[in-house]
């Protein structure tokens, strides 16, 4: 079964066309890389794949649910997204942030300590998110994906701000999703990361996807 299929998808915000006639297929166990210049629509495409932005034209389905229909509500918990900005609450500590996610996702709360240790932040667990460095915040955002183990992982510049050691976190997230029969989509400007993280790379130009 295909994890995701976009067929002639287009997206217009206001009256500005952002995505045009996007065709894309993502199969189980696939690690897809998306490259393309700044402002071409990569982040927007990930939001469509996450079912968070309904397309304004064309047909698409993700994990069996048709995009733009209420069916997507059921499959959303199987999607994990890490975007340009880490989704952290500044006043809460790193552990509290992940604990909130664990409770809402119904994950055993012991897992929080484990993933924090895995990403190398065990000793910073009780630091407020606002008092953490950019890279620490990004590691915590990735720890969230380790916590909920989504089938479809969408990574938007997940390597930015990570030090050389921490890049294996991204590899590990991808490895797990693939092992669970899911898929990973990696958007990045980092050629090395694209090589190591993707089996297939597509390039976007002018709001369209080229293989």
């Amino acid at each position: 079964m295909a994890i995701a299929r976009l067929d002639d998808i287009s997206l217009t915000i206001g009256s500005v066309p952002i995505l045009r006639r996007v065709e894309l297929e993502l199969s189980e166990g696939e690690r897809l890389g998306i490259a393309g210049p700044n402002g071409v629509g990569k982040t927007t495409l990930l939001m469509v794949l996450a079912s968070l932005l309904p397309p304004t034209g064309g047909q698409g389905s993700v994990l069996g649910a048709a995009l733009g229909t209420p069916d997507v509500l059921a499959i959303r918990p199987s999607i994990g997204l890490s975007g340009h900005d880490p989704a952290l609450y500044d006043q809460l500590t790193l552990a509290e942030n992940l604990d909130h996610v664990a409770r809402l996702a119904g994950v055993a709360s012991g897992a929080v300590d484990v993933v924090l240790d895995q990403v190398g932040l065990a000793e910073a667990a009780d630091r407020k998110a606002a008092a953490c460095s950019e890279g620490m915040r990004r590691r915590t955002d990735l720890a969230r994906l380790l916590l909920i183990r989504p089938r479809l992982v969408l990574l938007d510049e997940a390597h930015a701000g990570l030090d050389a050691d921490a890049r294996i976190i991204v590899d590990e997230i991808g490895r797990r999703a693939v092992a669970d029969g899911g898929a990973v989509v990696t958007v990045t400007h980092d050629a090395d990361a694209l090589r190591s993280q993707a089996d297939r790379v597509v390039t976007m130009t002018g709001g369209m996807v080229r293989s």
Partner: protein
Amino acid sequence: MSFWGQVIEFARRDLVAERRTGEVVAIVMPFGAVALMTLPFALTIDSALLSRVGPAMFWVVSLLFAMQIALRHSAADRPEHRAMLSLLGIDPFARLIGRAASSSLLVGLFMAVMFPLMVVFYSPDLPPGWPSALLPAALAALGLSLVGTLAAEVTAGLSGRTMLAPLIVAPLAIPLLVGGSQALESLPDNGGILPWTLLVAATDLALAVAGAVVARPLEEAAR
């Protein structure tokens, strides 16, 4: 996670953040007290007049600050938070109720502190049996929090939508104000309190229903 589990988790999260920042207890409350003090300063000192407007001023301050509490910074979601919560499969109505619950607690606390201050600052003539106006007041606190939380949901996301916030707040808050303040005024005539209490309760219910209906569309729109 069950619906009520989510509600509790959101309320808990907000209260943890509040404990961390002390935004309501250490900041909003003292400012509320200062706001109560402004009218006497602006008015030519006239204690008869003050004691007449005291309870009304209490409601004005409650309304304004309930909105500030519901819209407070530590409970605000950025777009990346909203995306994350959507993908966790959260019921947006559960979030709304959880938020409103934590805000109600804080608004209730706020009103509980402002009332005695108002009594000291304005020495109003409270009718005997005024404690029975507590129920409508508590219901009004709940309602004001619901209004504020709804307004916060509507204002999240697209900036053009923010105009809607005051437009929904005004009509929704007026019945609460009228009910809450008239409950006290009507106390002298026996049984007069009941209709006002019912008005406030009915408004609360209507607000909850409105929340249930609009929560999902609002979530999808706020992106």
